[in-house]
């Protein structure tokens, strides 16, 4: 295992795009008779054979329950499950692997914090501060909590380019702020938010900061200590891993003081007919038989990304994004939401065509084998704030190429031709 000591190293493997593409079986398939051009990575990434094989290996060689038996399979399954946790911890530079809690996805990670930490720490008259560019999953849990507690939900504003107003933030975050919850990278605008600066503002008033890193951990080096984060959430399926598993990372002292989220097996230390007490971290938050196979496969995904090196992953996507912005804007009748400077954004390009509705465009591109996302991208208030109700979105990952960007741009032109017959 190379490169597990650092998440941001150069990686031991060359960034050879042909070799990378060869690792992804799905890229060989045809869609509607055309070569698949998969540009919906912000929704879910494809999986390399290394990850798929780890699932097969687990079920063929190791399958058993964890933390239970003294038999060989259970011991091997437990070791593999815990090794995957250690890999994830190193990937985000967590001080301790017990701080990595397996959940189902980013949404569950966010809900866990809302139902435990926030339930215990946010009271009437307090406020929770989020940005105006959050995914629904980082809005609704806080809205509901605020209703329940009589707390206030406040929003950090951004400019027309989707860049957060940090000067304004210092007046929104005040002595009654208990939590600042912000996306590291917007799934609609591509904006990379200044998390370390928000953390400074939050900590100055005694608040904690939670980072929705669903769009950042898969694409760039993320270091929870450098960000000075308190909680950080992400999903495996957007980073080459399987669906159905995600991560909550939290500072040990915070997690340790939090009440459990769910009750059941594995999360208890001792149960009597009258009462129970709780297991240590991370098990306190992992009630019941966990998602063992997918946790192990997440470890395989982390290995894959670490071997490439997150610096190189990020560099590839920055180059591709700059090229795609230039090509898409050269069409002349397309508006791109979010920062116009590619250096301020990640590989997510949401755009509006002046005459073709996103759904018509999505169907037409699908006929050409090109998969994009269309709609409100689970961020209705944000999309509406740009005076549109839906947008088309192309999003990139390690296996995407400039020629796929060309296919997208050509596909948009073909669609224009079709609808202007």
């Amino acid at each position, binding site marked *: 295992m190379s490169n597990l000591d650092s998440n941001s190293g150069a990686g031991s493997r060359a960034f050879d795009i042909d070799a990378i593409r060869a690792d992804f079986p799905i890229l060989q398939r045809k869609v*509607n008779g*055309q070569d698949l051009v998969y540009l919906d990575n912000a929704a879910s990434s494809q999986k390399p054979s290394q990850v798929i094989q780890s699932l097969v290996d687990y079920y063929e060689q190791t399958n058993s329950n964890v933390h239970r038996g003294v038999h060989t399979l259970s011991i091997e399954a437990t070791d593999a499950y815990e090794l995957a946790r250690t890999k994830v911890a190193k990937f985000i530079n967590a001080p301790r692997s017990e701080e990595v809690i397996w959940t189902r996805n980013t949404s569950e990670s966010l809900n866990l914090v809302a139902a435990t930490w926030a339930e215990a720490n946010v009271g009437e008259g307090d406020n929770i501060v989020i940005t105006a560019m959050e995914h629904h999953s980082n809005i609704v849990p806080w809205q509901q909590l605020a209703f329940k507690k009589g707390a206030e939900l406040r929003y950090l504003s951004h400019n027309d380019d989707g860049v957060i107003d940090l000067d304004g933030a210092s007046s929104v975050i005040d002595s009654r702020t208990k939590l600042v919850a912000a996306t590291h990278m917007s799934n609609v605008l591509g904006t990379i938010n200044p998390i370390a600066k928000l953390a400074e503002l939050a900590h100055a008033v005694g608040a904690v900061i939670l980072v929705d890193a669903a769009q950042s951990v898969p694409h760039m080096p993320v270091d929870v200590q450098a960000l000075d984060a308190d909680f950080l959430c992400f999903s495996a399926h957007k980073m080459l891993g399987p669906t159905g598993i995600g991560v909550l990372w939290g500072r040990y002292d915070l997690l340790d003081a939090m009440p459990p989220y769910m009750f059941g097996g594995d999360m208890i230390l001792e149960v009597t007919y009258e009462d129970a007490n709780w297991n240590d971290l991370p098990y306190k938050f992992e009630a019941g038989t966990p998602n063992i196979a997918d946790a192990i496969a997440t470890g395989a995904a982390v290995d894959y990304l670490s071997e490439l090196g997150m610096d190189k992953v990020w560099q590839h996507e920055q180059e591709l994004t700059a090229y795609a912005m230039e090509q898409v804007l050269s069409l002349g009748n397309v508006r791109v939401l979010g920062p116009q400077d590619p250096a301020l954004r990640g590989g997510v390009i949401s755009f509006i065509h002046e005459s073709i509705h996103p759904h018509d465009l999505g169907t*037409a591109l699908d*006929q050409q*084998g090109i998969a994009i996302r269309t709609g*409100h991208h689970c961020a*209705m208030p944000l999309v509406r704030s740009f005076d549109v*109700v839906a947008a088309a979105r192309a999003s990139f990952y390690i296996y995407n190429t400039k020629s796929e960007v060309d296919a997208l741009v050509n596909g948009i032109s073909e669609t224009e031709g*079709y*609808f202007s017959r």
Partner: protein
Amino acid sequence: MTGGMSGLGDMDELYEAIILDHYRSPRNTAPVEEADVDLEVNNPFCGDEFHIQLKVEDDAVSQVGITGRGCAISQASASLLAELVEGKSSAEVRAAVDAVRRLLKGEEITDEEADILGDIEALGGVRKFPVRIKCALLSWVGLDDALKEHLAK
């Protein structure tokens, strides 16, 4: 340019000429004064939204006005609806809505229903694109609900 362009294979089945015509030149878009039925329908998932107004006299739709924004399918469907309901009795409108539902579900359409639907049969192409069925149904479902409500008054 014609259909069958490189890579746009089955598009013509969805976007028949009559659909594109209604999309480009929607019918009955003028607002209705003192409308008896006045409703907004929307699909938050697509962002499609339409404003449907009807004037109902002696149990017949004497005037209809539909404006809104949406994809080509939802716009063409709303326009086809506007064209169909004018002059129809509420029972005829209900029969048309049922026929459209059955058409989009892929059920057999009787000759009688085919007569009622006319150009609207072109919407049937959406069956090959299941995620777009809701686009075609949006205004019809809204109309059905609004008319029921009006008649219940």
